[in-house]
């Protein structure tokens, strides 16, 4: 059989090919593959499958350098989600994914459908979702467009996750003009499964029926995958119709039906119809199973009349699944779906003939030889060259930046930093997320450096966190990539969990620009360095390129989603001080580093200098020491030093708990030789602030692992405020002032003026 055009198909011209995002070379490759001219339907299929989003054509060669193995990894990259064993016959499935472009033009639906998609990726592995996380990046809160995006994205995430009933427990949010016009919305889902219930999305069994399950197919989201693979521009607003619309209620039904289906034993494979919808789900399942498939678009349940095969194949209507059932079990499958008021229609078959065939009734509209449609995509090895600007910024001597007059009182600087939106309390955001549903959230948003979920029926807990400081990656991609992993690991260790594995969401600009590809390559190499050093393999993730707007690329932002394991949830550790009189211990060493700091960016508007050095061996020892001390029951609180440095970390330990604020008396005279601002606000890595009732035990654990450690002060009552002595300097910060700065900054920023929908992208883009 060979495919022939349908009546009414447009003529394929170079302009049409270009409109589909294919280069002339790629189109030539398609013609060679077919041995004839492609039909319009085939052009549509390939434009989706060979989009960056589906094919990883620029990133795959680099991604291969990442470590993916550990004895407990049950499923590495290449599936809907990664899976690790946590013992007791249980496993954790987890994955992070971006929904940046949709969220840039339609924040509410863009973010909501991002949550929906990542949920499906996890429950199609046979796992029940137990937690959601979000990593968000926005431009400056000063612009109304950004406030509109923040409000819409947060509401979209909340409404979807809340309705499905999965607690949103952690994440990270940062603000920087570099993300103006191209926000990052990365959603991560974590699920729990019995390891014998793990199912893969691999088409198997010649003659087995292929079944479309869930919502009907409409015209929404057509070409979403291609949309995600191009720069945002002034024309982007016109692509609002490419954004899908989410229905969390149907998702909840689909979740329950899918888990019931998987447990029933009537199916062999299941996959989300996500990016590029039916096309990519069927092609990927066929490729994994090394079998052919045939699909009849007439049989796909549709919510609109007159849809063409092209539209049906490329629709990204949400809440749909593709299932391969066991032949003869179709009725049982249907019965389960009917119970949940959902539809299930047989739309195709697994076949022995190695082809990917689409028919419309009897008419073959697309037929590709072979079953490797996705990996037959061309791969690119673009030029990588660091930009002169990045080199120059890194080389700048930031210690020469003159202090502002107000900085003569570092308490002023501290207050400034605490109300910087990146550092300030995110409660305005997180209280819109149900974080306690499923009654397993031991530590929720703001409670600890990572969230902790208990595992019912065991003493175990799972710790989760996302992290990435894109500014560091911009200034030095290799070091920034390392720090992203190290910080996520440190955060997970602070709550008492052993870092186990990561998923990553690599948000970068246009890879065909040498400076962007340099950032990408070096950041991935840096992540790989850290993953090897810390023993946390990569189990999957997502690449989001073309995060650009007319002003340029976003900061390179490889977001890390870390999963850690706690053997006994009795030892879970919060970040805030809790007991007056406890000793405060600093694990790690203070340094004279200011480069890439929030202090320079927020107080001085300067993004320059080398990011802090990342000593992976020191990070590993720090984590081991911390876990030994926590496991021994000696640690009352633990909080790492990150944006804003040691002074901000200490302040957060004091005022982080709105209900139970504390104070602290701290003496840093041991580092009196360091410039004061570097000591207080520099962002040296591998440091954790611990409070303890047994300083001797903590110091001993540190010594045993070769970690520098020193008692630096005592926890006081809230009325004492935060007092830091450095030699003959005494910095006194009023607790109430710090708390007000920290807790009210975000709501104040959001309430400023009425958020206006800036529809004109020229306005929306703002300036860098």
């Amino acid at each position: 059989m060979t495919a022939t055009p349908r009546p009414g198909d447009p003529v394929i011209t170079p302009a049409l090919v270009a409109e589909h995002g294919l280069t002339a070379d790629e189109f030539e490759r398609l013609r060679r593959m077919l041995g004839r001219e492609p039909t319009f339907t085939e052009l549509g299929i390939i434009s989706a499958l060979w989009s960056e989003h589906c094919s990883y054509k620029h990133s795959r060669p680099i991604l291969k350098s990442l470590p993916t193995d550990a004895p407990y990894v049950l499923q590495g990259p290449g599936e809907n989600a990664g899976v690790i064993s946590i013992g007791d016959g249980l496993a954790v499935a987890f994955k992070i994914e971006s929904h940046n472009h949709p969220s840039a033009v339609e924040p509410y639906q863009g973010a909501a459908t991002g949550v929906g998609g990542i949920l499906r990726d996890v429950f199609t592995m046979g796992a029940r979702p137990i937690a959601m996380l979000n990593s968000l990046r926005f431009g400056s809160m000063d612009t109304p467009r950004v406030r509109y995006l923040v409000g819409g994205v947060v509401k979209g995430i909340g409404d979807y996750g809340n309705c499905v009933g999965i607690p949103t427990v952690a994440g990270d949010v940062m603000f920087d003009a570099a993300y103006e016009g191209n926000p990052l919305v990365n959603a991560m889902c974590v699920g729990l499964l019995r390891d014998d219930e793990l199912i893969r999305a691999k088409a198997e069994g010649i003659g087995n029926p292929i079944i479309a399950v869930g919502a009907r197919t409409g015209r929404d989201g057509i070409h979403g995958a291609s949309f995600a693979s191009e720069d945002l521009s002034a024309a982007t607003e016109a692509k609002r119709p490419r954004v899908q619309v989410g229905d969390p209620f149907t998702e909840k039904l689909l979740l329950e039906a899918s888990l019931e289906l998987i447990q029933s034993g009537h199916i062999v494979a299941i996959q989300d119809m996500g990016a590029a919808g039916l096309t990519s789900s069927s092609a990927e399942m066929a490729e994994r199973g090394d079998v052919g498939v045939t699909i009849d678009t007439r049989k796909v349940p549709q919510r609109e009349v007159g849809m063409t095969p092209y539209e049906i194949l490329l629709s990204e209507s949400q809440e749909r699944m593709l299932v391969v059932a066991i032949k003869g079990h179709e009725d049982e499958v249907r019965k389960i779906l009917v119970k949940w008021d959902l539809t299930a229609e047989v739309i195709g078959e697994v076949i022995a003939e190695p082809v990917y065939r689409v028919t419309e009734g009897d008419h073959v509209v697309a037929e590709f030889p072979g079953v490797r449609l996705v990996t037959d995509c061309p791969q690119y090895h673009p030029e990588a060259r660091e930009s002169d600007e990045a080199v120059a910024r890194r080389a700048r001597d930031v210690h020469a930046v003159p202090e502002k007059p107000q900085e003569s009182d570092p308490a002023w600087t501290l207050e400034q930093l605490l109300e910087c939106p990146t550092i300030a309390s995110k409660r305005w955001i997180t209280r819109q997320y149900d974080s306690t549903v499923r009654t397993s959230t031991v530590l929720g948003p703001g409670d600890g450096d990572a969230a902790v979920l208990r595992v019912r029926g065991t003493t175990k807990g799972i710790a989760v966190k996302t992290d990435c400081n894109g500014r560091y990656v911009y200034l030095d991609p290799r070091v920034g990539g390392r720090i992203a992993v190290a910080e996520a690991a440190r955060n997970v260790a602070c709550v008492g969990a052993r870092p186990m594995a990561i998923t990553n969401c690599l948000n970068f600009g246009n890879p065909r620009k040498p400076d962007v590809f340099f950032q990408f390559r070096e950041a991935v190499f840096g992540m790989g360095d850290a993953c090897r050093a810390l023993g946390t393999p990569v189990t999957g993730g997502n690449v989001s390129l073309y995060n650009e707007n007319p002003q340029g690329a976003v900061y390179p932002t490889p977001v890390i989603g870390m999963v850690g394991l706690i053997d006994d949830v009795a030892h879970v550790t919060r970040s805030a001080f809790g007991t007056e009189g406890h000793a405060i211990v600093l694990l790690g060493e203070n340094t004279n580093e200011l480069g890439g700091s929030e202090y320079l960016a927020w107080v001085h508007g300067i993004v320059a200098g080398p990011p802090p050095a990342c000593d992976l061996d020191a990070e590993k020892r720090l984590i081991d020491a911390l876990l030994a001390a926590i496991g021994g029951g000696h640690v009352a609180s633990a909080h790492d030093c990150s944006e804003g440095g040691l002074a901000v970390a200490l302040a957060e330990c004091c005022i982080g708990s709105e209900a139970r604020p504390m104070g602290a008396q701290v003496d840093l005279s041991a580092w009196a030789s360091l410039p004061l601002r570097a000591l207080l606000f520099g962002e040296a890595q591998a440091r954790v602030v611990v409070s303890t009732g047994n300083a001797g035990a903590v110091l001993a654990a540190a010594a045993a692992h070769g970690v520098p450690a020193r008692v630096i002060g005592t926890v006081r009552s809230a009325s004492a405020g935060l007092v830091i002595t450095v030699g003959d300097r005494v910095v006194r910060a009023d607790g109430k002032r710090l708390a007000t700065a920290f807790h009210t900054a975000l709501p104040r920023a959001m309430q400023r003026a009425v958020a206006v929908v800036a529809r004109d992208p020229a306005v929306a883009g703002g300036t860098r």
Partner: protein
Amino acid sequence: MKFGIVSFPGSNCDDDAVFAATETLGQPAVKLWHKAHDLEGSDVIILPGGFSYGDYLRAGAIARFSPIMAEVAAHAQRGGPVIGICNGFQIACEAGLLPGALMRNAGLQFLSMPVTIRVENTITRWTALCREGQCLTMPIAHGEGRYTVDAATLERVEGEGLVVFRYVDAAGEATEAANVNGSLDNIAGVRNAAGNVVGLMPHPERALDTLLGSTDGRVLFESVLAAVHA
């Protein structure tokens, strides 16, 4: 004592309610499908939280028409204990088992946070073991929890002591600041005249374990257990 937990399409706290009955109280529990016509011998009914039918209409407005609700109403009529939590409270109000209605929160935002509520009376099956004025801390997680009722009914609700819980501050005072969702008279939960049906927006089933921060929800479940055994 057997707990029946109704699963509507979109219920998402039904598992948590089952755990409350089984793990915390050590009692048998069964999930009751919304299309069923039988309570399967349940002594106590829980209408759990969630987003029944997506709550795309008014919260709880469609769920009240589920076949199982006729059986729940008959059980309530017989004096059987029923508790509606969050979406279950909304459904109970829509079904006429309880007075009032729940509207969008005053701030128009979904609110997920711990709140303190004060027990206003102890004559219900669900508060029998409480002290009057006792303060309980437990999470809320809702977008439509602003209790409202017409003036005449409010007079009856207040006059007949149908208010079971009010949002209060740390000192136990029903202040405006403590009234997180803008409910009329800080009302967080109400009962029917007989005291066997109670509804509330906060989640007692999420406050049963010190590990999760509060055990203040236990007293509600222990009350009903004691009441039925008595």
